[in-house]
């Protein structure tokens, strides 16, 4: 599945694109333990966008699955937060498909499992399951990319440089007749 990502660099650029099957081949940099702020070398992720859902976290992983992908993000750096506020989210994205609840029109298929420390309060919902942090299992190390803490000013610049990309632009598997100008319609 199509994955949009943005590197954490001092001169931020727009989204880059990679297929979820190729995520492991992206540049990788180690945990930025002693380094603060972005620099010009790719390898630290600033954000990911899948079907319009944007992720910003301490750590990222993308796994290719049949007809979609699984995105895992988590915050567990003790230098930034106590263990009671650790947080992880595993999102599953499947390709768009007709949805009978909206009259058979194309719609997203997304679900998530959230793992939270005892100090956080996250509500469950029909497409969000909440579990304790202790049940979170790290993804395969080859899939893990790290983020880096940026100043508010630098972070704002990265956000401004992103073009909005919404769910209708994920056209994989949708018949040509339902795609107009790169967007899924109907």
């Amino acid at each position, binding site marked *: 599945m199509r994955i949009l990502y943005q590197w954490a660099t001092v001169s931020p650029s727009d989204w880059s694109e990679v297929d979820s099957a190729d995520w492991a081949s992206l540049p990788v940099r180690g945990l930025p333990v002693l380094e603060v702020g972005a620099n010009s070398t790719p390898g630290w992720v600033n954000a990911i966008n899948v079907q319009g*859902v*944007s992720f*910003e976290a301490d750590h990222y992983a993308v796994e290719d699955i049949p007809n979609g992908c699984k995105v895992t993000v988590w915050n567990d750096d003790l230098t930034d937060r106590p263990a009671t506020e650790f*947080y992880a*989210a595993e999102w599953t994205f499947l390709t768009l498909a007709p949805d009978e609840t*909206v009259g058979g*029109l194309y719609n997203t298929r997304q679900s998530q499992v959230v793992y939270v420390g005892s100090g956080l309060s*996250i509500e469950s919902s029909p497409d969000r399951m909440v579990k304790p942090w202790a049940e979170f299992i790290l993804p395969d190390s080859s899939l893990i990319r790290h983020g880096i803490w940026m100043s508010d000013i630098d972070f704002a610049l990265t956000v401004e440089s992103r073009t909005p990309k*919404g769910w209708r632009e994920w056209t994989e598997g949708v018949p040509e007749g339902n795609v107009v100008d790169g967007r899924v319609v109907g």
Partner: protein
Amino acid sequence: MAITFFHRSTAVASGVHVATHEVQHSQTQGSSATTLVSAGHADGADTLAFLFSSTSLPDSFADWASGDYQCVIDCTVAGADMTYGLLTLGGSAGHFARINAARTSDLETRTQAEGAFSGTGLKTATTGTWDPSAGAASDEFECLIAARRATTGGHGNQSVTIEVDDPGASPGRSIWDGEAAGTNYQETATDDVDVSDTVAAVKVATQTVTEAADLTDLVARVASAVRSVSEATGITDLVTVAKAVTIEVTESLGITDDVQSQLLITEAVVEALGITDTVTKVSIMGRSVTEPVGVTDVVARVIASARSVSEAVGITDQATVAKAIQIVISDVVGLTDDVIDVLTPGGTGLFETVTDLVGATDSTTAVKMIQVEIADTVGLTDQVGRLMVLSRAIVESIGITDPVVRIATAVRALIEAVGITDTVSTVFVGTTFWTPDPVAYTPAPVAYTPAAPDQPPPW
């Protein structure tokens, strides 16, 4: 009956709440590009993000009926930690509401039956069964969407961005479901009397609507039926309204045959209104399509009628479009033998009816009179102008611009409509009325004197 209100970007200030975006509910769908409206949230923050109001409900709905009111949110971009919906999130109370016309107070509210939404896509919030208390006819329908970012220790802002003004098939919209049962003319009228015959079903439906409204004028009765469909579906584009009427009626009855679709609704309407005069039947068809939707330009009225027929039944072939219109007209007035009844002076069909009225007796005028009847329908009095209007209406409605093709198409439509296949008949519009000169043709003899051989020319 439900009324659909599309989510639009036009600002509509609310005195009830302070929301990031206070925008419009409109029965008019967007016609060009979509617009994105976005609300950003810091870690743990919540807001009233989007408020839709200004619904302009029909005056007769002071007491909203029990129904399943809905709000379909087209969330195009969302932060992973965001939730949203018509419910209370943190300190922000989203909801469906009945508000006063001044938009200064909520009169009654209802939260969505579903849990909070997350992620992107089309998200349908529903009230479940909701029966608001009676109020004023001027009250409005409000949808207020709250959003909240979970506290995860993240920095910066995360947003929820929705699409509005979408002209496509799945726009963000709210559905007001407050009309009492029994007023959906197609479903309830036919169900009540257990009508299975298709013509009778439409007839009953039309009678229900117009008699309930105590209408007596024929056109007003048809107009009322048409309006009830168009308002129910929220369609305002003129041609689309007429098209929707045909589609809505015929699809509900399972009719798929092209010509039969338009024929059926016309038959049903004229029967429902007790019309027996054939000319009036034809006239009603044209007027009923164009008058309810406010088309006054003469050419535009004929074009609208032609387009509504052809688009409704999905005809794209140019000649077939024109032919179908002719067939529908003649079928409506009960012609069985096309050529005889249309063309024979003194016959029992359209020719007699129409030509007697206008005093025409010759055969060529017979076919023309069909067109004249259409021109009468739209109020043309100038004879030349009548034919010009019809020709323009046919060819323009099906998009022909080449002048030769325009004439050819009109001719084809006429002759195919009356079933002529013979080539000579085609050219002369009916051999019945074409009598060749009975005098035998004898060419005059021409003297021929060959030049003498081997003689030099005289110059």
